[in-house]
């Protein structure tokens, strides 16, 4: 065993600027305003709420993956000490409505009814079947044991490929198949690129692979919780959600409670990662029970409930083909996916793969492009958004197949990428998938990343280890990724049949004492909007950072908003703050002109002060004008007594962060253990408002992407039980499992929004997974290893080393019939094994 030569003893030096006072707030590494309450325990997590007379709800969940409910005996539970009421699906059948899916990805998409609590049948383990309302949490939990449900088991289908086979058991027995939708985009048909079939027929080289994006669980640290307070015919609902505005509208439509009678509050929310981008059955059930009983209710899930019943992510089988010439110029990419929807479509489930539909070409110029995705029902927990949502899947496929093509061509993987990616002077660049990539410099980011990780030394060490037949081999993997952020141009969402818009809203209130309230429609849960939005407003208004308070997450305060997901908040919501600030300044300018008895055009505004050009001493601050507004004693004729402003921002294009991530791993060939030796990234996320927050987002994202590569997988047994149902079994990495990250940035301002930001929330998670897998394979290719399924556990790595190829994974997956590690090198061959194969 070789000892690591240069494992750093200390964390990398920060490359952030010092927190000295630059002229502007934007770009300054401000420490977060949010922290004060979080580091002292003075928080408002939903589960902290206590209301007079509040009842505690516990939910009995199905232990069956597919069954008919013959009967439910709640008699004993009703008599248990402390129990106030028990409800089953039948009790609530007339009022529970159905849960919504707001993204109709094809006109004929099949969307089964989804009750919040099962009435006749259960379709997955974890579905709600009964609710206990009791005086204490313990009494409610105890009474769950007393409910007797008689289930008639029904056939279970869990595997996507089996689910699509002829004669497969049906997840929903009134439907004809387990297919929900089939979405196709073809550049030839769309007129956005070359003819795909001809391209592949005439290609000099075609490489085809089958990749598996395993099922993951978002695993936010704060379990979900809901509190409802009924007051007459109005309801206040607190929920640990990313999307209070969406929850309000959808709950109104689901339950029939008029929207104006429903207030939704997301207080402190402990992480989401897409897992709280949902309108959950429990929100509906809490409302219904509170309405029935006229009492406040609280539901707070256990971790095992959370892992079992909160939506999952990923779960995609990918068949991807790349066509190129012998010099390594890409000519086409086509992807065919199966995406497991689980038993039902949740809020945006079918849209998740579609959000990646146009990104399988990655950062590269690909003349012909085809995307084909089938959504499949199985008796498992529904899937929906998880950090990256469609783009990690796309990025993984393209970054992995680029390495496979490089191997096939005998080219350096980085050289192959350089040859094909979009050059700086080619932006804006319209891809064959029809997207307009806005800006960037892939060469510089890559050069910086190589320098950052000490690439030449790593390659030299790799060579030494190979020559010495060291049992610990070194591998280096790349991910030169781009992604699309900034959800979203409303018009584009319309063309994709998404029900909502993509704008964001902000209001600025100038208080009499000159303090400022910024009301945002975004809903942070760890991203630091209170700090970053304060920086934006402070710059634009010329007021001190400390004088700004950011309000969010309460529909009674922030009336309009579309919340936080998809790396949209700064790009869209921050832009709305800037727009609102400019309106405030414009109104204040009129007041200043009136009070200074000057012409508006003669006023200049800087550092928060209006001054009359050429008249020293004649000036008014915007904070003074705020007080003058309050008094309004001397006010411009015809102007309303307010300088407050509302604004929205609706982007005209997505934004496209990009970067180069390089991972070096040590693989112990005797044990299969993988250790990350070095991880470095250069990300271009556009203009950086707060470098500390940006660095933190990259760290956390990279950690989650590494975790997909090495650690996490939601596993079901043959009966449909989630066997990774606690944190004992579902492996979240600890500090000891992760490396230190080297990070840096290039900055190309996004041209599409006034902040210039591109979005950073998902970049790390999108980029890192293929970098890790490529690194492990780079270490092991000389040993005959061609692929290893994620997560790359020591056992899988060891088997691959022992058996060669992919360690028998494909054979055991039973999928060689239409996929697998095949490479076609004869011109004119488009095999049925490729992604367009007729497998169904």
């Amino acid at each position, binding site marked *: 065993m070789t000892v690591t030569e240069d494992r*750093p*003893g*200390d*964390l990398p030096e920060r490359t952030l600027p010092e927190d000295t006072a630059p002229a502007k707030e934007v770009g300054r590494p401000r*420490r*977060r305003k*949010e*922290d*004060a*309450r*979080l*580091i*002292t*325990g*003075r*928080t408002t*997590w939903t*589960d*902290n709420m*206590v209301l007079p007379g509040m009842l505690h709800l516990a939910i009995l969940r199905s232990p069956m993956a597919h069954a008919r409910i013959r009967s439910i005996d709640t008699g004993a539970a009703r008599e248990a000490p402390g129990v106030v009421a028990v409800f089953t699906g039948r009790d609530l059948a007339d009022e529970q409505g159905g849960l919504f899916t707001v993204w109709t990805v094809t006109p004929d998409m099949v969307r089964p009814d989804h009750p919040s609590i099962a009435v006749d049948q259960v379709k997955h383990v974890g579905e709600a079947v009964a609710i206990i309302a009791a005086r204490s*949490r*313990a009494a409610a939990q105890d009474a769950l044991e007393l409910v007797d449900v008689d289930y008639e088991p029904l056939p279970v289908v869990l595997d996507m490929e089996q689910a699509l086979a002829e004669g497969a058991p049906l997840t929903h027995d009134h439907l004809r198949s387990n297919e929900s939708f089939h979405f196709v985009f073809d550049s030839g048909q769309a007129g956005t690129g070359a003819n795909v079939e001809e391209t592949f027929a005439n290609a000099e080289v075609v490489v085809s692979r089958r990749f598996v994006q395993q099922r993951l669980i978002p*695993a*936010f*640290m*704060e*379990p979900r919780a809901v509190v409802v307070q009924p007051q007459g015919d109005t309801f206040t609902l607190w929920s640990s959600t990313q999307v209070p505005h969406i929850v309000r509208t959808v709950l109104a439509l689901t339950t029939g409670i008029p929207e104006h009678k429903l207030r939704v509050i997301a207080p*402190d*929310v*402990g*992480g989401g*990662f897409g897992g709280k981008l949902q309108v959950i059955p429990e929100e509906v059930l809490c409302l219904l029970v509170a309405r029935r009983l006229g009492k406040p209710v609280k539901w707070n899930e*256990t*971790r*095992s409930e959370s892992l079992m019943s909160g939506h999952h992510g990923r779960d995609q089988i990918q068949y991807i083909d790349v066509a190129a010439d012998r010099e390594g110029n890409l000519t086409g990419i086509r992807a065919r996916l199966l995406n497991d929807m689980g038993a039902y479509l949740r809020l945006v489930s079918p849209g998740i793969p579609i959000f990646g539909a146009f990104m399988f070409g990655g950062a590269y110029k690909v003349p012909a492009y085809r995307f084909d995705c089938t959504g499949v029902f199985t008796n498992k927990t529904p899937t929906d958004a998880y950090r990256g949502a469609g783009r990690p899947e796309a990025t993984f496929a393209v970054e992995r197949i680029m390495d496979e093509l490089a191997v096939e061509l005998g080219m350096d993987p980085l050289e192959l990428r350089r040859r094909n990616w979009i050059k700086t002077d080619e932006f804006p660049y319209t891809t064959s998938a029809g997207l307009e990539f806005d800006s960037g410099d892939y060469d510089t980011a890559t050069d910086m990343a190589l320098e950052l990780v000490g690439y030449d030394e790593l390659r030299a060490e790799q060579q030494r280890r190979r020559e010495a037949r060291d049992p610990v081999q070194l591998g280096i993997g790349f991910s030169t990724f781009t992604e699309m952020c900034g959800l979203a141009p409303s018009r584009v969402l319309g063309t994709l049949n998404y029900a909502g818009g993509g704008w964001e809203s902000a209001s600025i209130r100038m208080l009499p004492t000159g303090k400022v309230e910024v009301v945002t429609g975004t809903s942070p*849960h*760890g*991203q*630091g909007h209170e700090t970053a939005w304060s920086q934006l407003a402070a710059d634009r208004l010329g007021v001190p950072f400390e004088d700004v308070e950011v309000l969010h997450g309460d529909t009674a305060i922030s009336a309009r908003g579309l919340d936080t997901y998809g790396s949209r908040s700064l790009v869209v919501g921050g832009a709305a703050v800037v727009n609102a600030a400019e309106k405030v300044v414009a109104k204040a300018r009129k007041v200043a002109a009136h009070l200074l008895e000057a012409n508006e055009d003669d006023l200049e505004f800087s550092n928060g002060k209006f001054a009359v050009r050429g008249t020293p001493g004649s000036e008014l601050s915007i904070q003074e004008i705020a007080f003058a507004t309050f008094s309004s004693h001397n006010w411009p004729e015809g102007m309303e007594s307010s300088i407050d402003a509302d604004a929205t921002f609706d982007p005209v294009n997505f934004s496209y962060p990009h970067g180069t991530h390089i991972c070096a791993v040590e693989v112990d060939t005797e044990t299969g253990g993988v250790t990350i030796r070095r991880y470095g990234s250069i990300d271009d996320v556009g203009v950086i408002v707060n470098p*500390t*927050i940006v*660095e*933190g987002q990259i*760290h*956390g*994202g*990279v*950690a*989650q992407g590494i975790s997909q590569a090495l650690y996490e997988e939601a596993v079901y047994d043959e009966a449909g039980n989630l066997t990774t149902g*606690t*944190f*004992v079994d579902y492996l*979240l990495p*600890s*500090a*000891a499992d*992760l490396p*230190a*990250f080297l990070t840096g940035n290039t900055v190309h301002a996004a041209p599409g929004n006034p902040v210039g930001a591109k979005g950073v929330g998902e970049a790390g998670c999108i980029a890192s997974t293929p970098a890790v897998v490529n690194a492990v394979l780079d270490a092991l290719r000389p040993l005959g290893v061609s692929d290893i399924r994620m997560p790359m556990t020591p056992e899988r790595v060891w088997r691959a080393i022992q058996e060669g190829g992919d360690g028998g994974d494909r054979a055991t997956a039973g999928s060689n019939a239409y996929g697998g590690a095949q490479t076609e090198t004869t011109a004119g061959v488009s095999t049925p094994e490729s992604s367009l194969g007729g497998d169904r």
Partner: protein
Amino acid sequence: MTQISVRVDGVNYTDDVEPRTLLVHYLREQLGKVGTVVGCDTSNCGACTVHLDGEAVKSCSVLAVQADGRAVTTIEGIAQDDGSLHPMQKAFHEQHGLQCGFCTPGMIMAAIDLVHDNPDPSEHEVREGIEGNLCRCTGYQNIVRAVQAAAADMRGAAHATATEPAGAPA
């Protein structure tokens, strides 16, 4: 019901609890110490970490009755009386060692105990030392920075206390 007497964050409480009551539920539900949170059912996540007689424990795996006659310190009890932050709290803020903040109370309590045992931990020792506390947001790097920065601060404070003569200006 069993009667227990517990000193929590410097205040004495005497209460009746069900014998099965976990310490964390006693803290949250009977005392209103909601700064300490519950993140899992299996004592993996460490979000509920408090100090019991000065040692870090996961309060979800301690019964309230086991705390009888003992002293509990939570995240709400580590700042000074004048409100000034504990060096570990300060360092988490300075080093951006938190994002959503849900793991933070437990992480801070675990880290204080770690630094008591090892006043000058290496990066590796910090990573191993907080292995029982999960964070999903930060990737841990800034938590490690925070713990090392706090350790330096706490060493400095200990040094100052040990060497400065009584009555020296603060």
